[in-house]
């Protein structure tokens, strides 16, 4: 009986847990509740993925109102995988957060911090699972509003967290409002908000200027949310000044959910036959993705704050994802979806390692990193492993992503793009090398004694590193699901 | 016939009410200092709004709408003078002196709120 209700439980369990956590008097109780809920969400998303791979698309009608009139939840391989990424990362981050949040947030705020975290989780899961365009907006806003607060919580360490959160709030709200305008125009021309229904009705209308503008506004709005170059300006500071656990969670999930929504709107709702689909992908998204890869990586090289360096690297990595989708082929989309998963693993691990450094030294500038290879050997080893994955070394997940991306570029006959992908990886080598050089070839400043991060931080970090290596060696599961998701999105699923 | 009479009566109320509102607005712009402006705004609040409400009540006849309009009227009757009083009191507490004759208190006039309807 419960199996039939899994799609709604995926969202409602964290949603109900959020107000429940307000009743907790102590931060540790709230943490335990959050962790339990996160594990439940992970179990549900695994079960959902299993069901989807067995039986194909699942549909759940809320309130038993039939689809275009009521709100429908629709799970297929594409969003089942994203749900798994979100709940999985959340489950790994929480044990890490228990120690790092206790260190970074005032005690009287800890209970509500976990409430906010649960709301963020709810919002991300809700915007991914839904089959209704307006419902996606509502949950997008739940996740955004809670994210602004979570980022601002970094103000105890650095007041710039406040301005970062404010900028994020303004840019995010503009993005969401653009999205709403686009959805409104779609609704105006079709009379429906249900994604499946929209997908049927849009091709029937044919060439229409209102729909073209709706398309433009949705792409721009989601582009702002996923920090598509040149709309990325909110991201570096937000990631750099947020509390460490929040940075890990956001970097691994928030932009991913926005990428998923963009995929859903581009491929499922508008579809490859939409008049502006081809030109937008070829002449807008592809060049922007390539510029993002190079510009953001170059800026990353010159960052003093390593957290901010990784934030710029994230913008470059989002470039890879957008590049994959701009080919509009099964291989291209497979590479995008693979990279969604893989990037969550590698950035999660890297930000976790940095978080351990921040916890010990109060910041993570290139200067702090000097000699850390000897001071915090396990933490820095994790950083190096994550860095290698980011660069795309064989036997790591980064290699798998790059491999598929290059293959997709070659398959579309765009060999210069394939060369550019490889060339941009060299930039990643440079900025990772700067840290490695400082950590292993410089001496630690005087007075700094060797002291490893507590195991509560190291174990989650190494769990993610383990996943980086495991899925880098045996990629059969991830590539199978990603391939299936790509076929679902392109409408060529068996 | 009765329809004509009610229409005429209600329009008379509405027109005079609207006239007073316009006068109040003009006063708000043209009066020399904060307190006299407040005085002009008071006209809009009390008599102008009440007359318009009366006109609407005549239009509505004996119905639930009239009861609601009466309640709105009662609410305005209490709140408008109170808020005017509170604003004037706050201005006085803040040290804004009324301009009684030329020169006296003119120095503080510039401190009047900028939202003077320009």
């Amino acid at each position, binding site marked *: 009986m419960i199996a039939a209700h899994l799609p709604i439980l995926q969202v409602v369990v964290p949603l109900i847990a959020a107000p429940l956590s307000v009743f907790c008097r102590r931060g540790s109780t709230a943490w335990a509740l959050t962790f339990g809920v996160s594990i439940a969400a992970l179990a549900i998303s695994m079960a959902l993925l299993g069901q989807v791979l067995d039986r194909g698309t699942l549909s759940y009608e809320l309130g038993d109102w039939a689809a275009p*009139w009521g709100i429908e939840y629709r799970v297929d391989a594409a969003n089942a995988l994203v749900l798994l990424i979100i709940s999985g990362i959340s489950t790994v981050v929480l044990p890490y957060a228990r120690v790092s949040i206790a260190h970074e947030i005032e005690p009287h705020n800890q209970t509500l911090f976990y409430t906010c975290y649960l709301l963020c989780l709810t919002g991300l899961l809700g915007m991914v699972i839904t089959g209704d365009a307006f419902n996606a907006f509502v949950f997008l806003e739940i996740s955004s509003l809670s994210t602004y607060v979570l980022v601002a919580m970094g103000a105890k360490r650095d007041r710039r967290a406040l301005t970062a959160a404010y900028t994020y709030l303004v840019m995010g709200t503009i993005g969401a409002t653009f999205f709403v305008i686009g959805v409104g125009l779609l609704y105006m021309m*079709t009379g429906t908000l249900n994604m499946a229904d929209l997908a049927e009705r849009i091709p029937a209308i044919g060439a229409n200027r209102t729909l073209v*503008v709706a398309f433009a506004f949705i792409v721009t709005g989601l582009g702002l949310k996923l920090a598509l170059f040149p709309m990325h300006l909110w991201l570096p500071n937000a990631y750099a000044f947020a509390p460490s656990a929040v940075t890990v969670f956001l970097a691994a999930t928030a932009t991913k959910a926005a990428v998923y929504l963009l995929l859903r709107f581009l491929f499922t709702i508008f579809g490859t036959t939409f008049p502006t689909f081809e030109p937008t992908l070829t002449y807008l998204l592809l060049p922007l993705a390539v510029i993002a890869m190079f510009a953001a990586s170059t800026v990353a090289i010159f960052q003093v704050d390593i957290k901010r360096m990784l934030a710029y690297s994230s913008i470059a990595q989002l470039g890879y994802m957008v590049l994959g989708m701009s080919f509009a082929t099964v291989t291209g989309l497979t590479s995008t979806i693979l990279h969604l998963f893989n990037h969550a693993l590698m950035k999660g691990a890297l930000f976790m390692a940095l978080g351990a450094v921040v916890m010990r030294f109060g910041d993570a500038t290139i200067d702090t990193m000097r000699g850390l290879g000897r001071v915090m050997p396990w933490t820095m080893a994790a950083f190096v492993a994550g860095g290698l994955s980011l660069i795309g070394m064989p036997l790591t997940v980064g290699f798998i992503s790059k491999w598929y991306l290059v293959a997709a570029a070659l398959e579309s006959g765009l060999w210069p793009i394939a060369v550019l992908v490889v060339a941009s990886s060299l930039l990643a080598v440079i900025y990772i090398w700067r840290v490695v050089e400082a950590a292993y070839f410089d001496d630690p400043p005087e007075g700094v004694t060797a002291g490893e991060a507590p195991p509560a931080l190291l174990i989650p970090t190494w769990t993610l590193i383990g996943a980086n290596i495991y899925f880098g060696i045996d990629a059969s599961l991830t590539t199978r699901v990603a391939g299936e998701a790509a076929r679902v999105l392109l409408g060529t699923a068996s | 016939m009765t329809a004509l009479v009610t229409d005429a009566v209600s329009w008379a109320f509405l027109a005079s009410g609207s006239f007073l509102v316009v006068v109040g607005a003009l006063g708000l712009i043209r009066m020399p200092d904060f307190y006299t402006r407040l005085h002009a705004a008071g006209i809009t609040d009390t008599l102008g709004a009440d007359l318009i409400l009366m006109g609407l009540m005549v239009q509505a006849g004996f119905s639930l709408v009239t009861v609601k309009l009466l309640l709105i009227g009662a609410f305005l009757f209490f709140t408008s003078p109170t808020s005017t009083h509170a604003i004037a009191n706050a201005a006085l507490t803040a040290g804004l002196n009324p301009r009684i004759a030329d020169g006296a208190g003119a120095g503080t006039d510039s401190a009047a709120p900028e939202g003077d309807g320009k």
Partner: protein
Amino acid sequence: MSIAAVIDISLLVFLGLTAFAILKLRALFAVVMLSSVFSLVSAALLVHLDAVDVAFTEAAVGAGISTVLMLATLALTSRREKAPTRSQALPLIVVFLTGLALVYGTLDMPRFGDPQAPIQVHVAPKYIADTQSEIGIPNIVTAVLASYRGFDTLGEVTVIFTAGIGVLLLLAGFIREPEGLRVQTMDHHLVLRVVTKMLIGPIMLFALYVQFHGDFGPGGGFQAGLIFASAFIIYALVFGLENARKAVPGRAVRLLVACGVLLYGGVGFVSFLFGKNYLNYSVLGVDQVAGQHLGILLVEFGVGLTVAAVMVSTFYAFAGQNQPISDEDW
């Protein structure tokens, strides 16, 4: 040109002038008051466009609670905007192009008021035709809001809950202990105190009317919550935050915020027991209409509870800041 078009156009022109004045003015108190005017005029326009529920909410939110929060912020920050120093050319170009794109998009739109527009023939007609038989309440907006698209509304409650928690997290660390509060009670305003005491009762009564009359006319939990909260905020303004806290302590408000969301979410779970999908209220009563009716009543109450509690706790958080909100600032 019909009367309706004249009203429509003049209200829109008035909105345009207000918006332009907001852009140009640098006295922030005037800007905030004008934004309140903007909301009120757009509420009038919304009534004219038949969206009475929306107009009610916009008036309560835009001209009410947003204005109060903005004034509180100004009292705590500054009252004048400095002259812009950077170049305005790029924003102007970007905004101009965006506007141009939108105007281009209007060319293929159905004309204003067209009864044959796609949105008038697909999906919505069912709501109008079947609300009476399936839900059994006259206000179609409430029926769609609380039942057909009830999950959106659960999301909406969650959004307001998020905002409430967020404001607490951001400002709670800075709330002074009650004995340290210097929010002045308006002791010398005898008139104000008497009138406030007289009005609080009727305002709360009106909130209850709006809450439970939402099935039949414009209104519902959200508007009722705002009105209820405003009665409380008036009390706090006139009699002092300390007294308001005595009446309803901060922690109680916080728990009430959570209770509303729990009520809404909990009602949704009941349908599981009967093997139905989440948020199917039909199982709550002897037949579908009775069940839907009860369900809508319950979830609307949850909405009202959360909204009222969030507004009060947000007001506490702003008013409890270390700079007092004094007479002079109002």
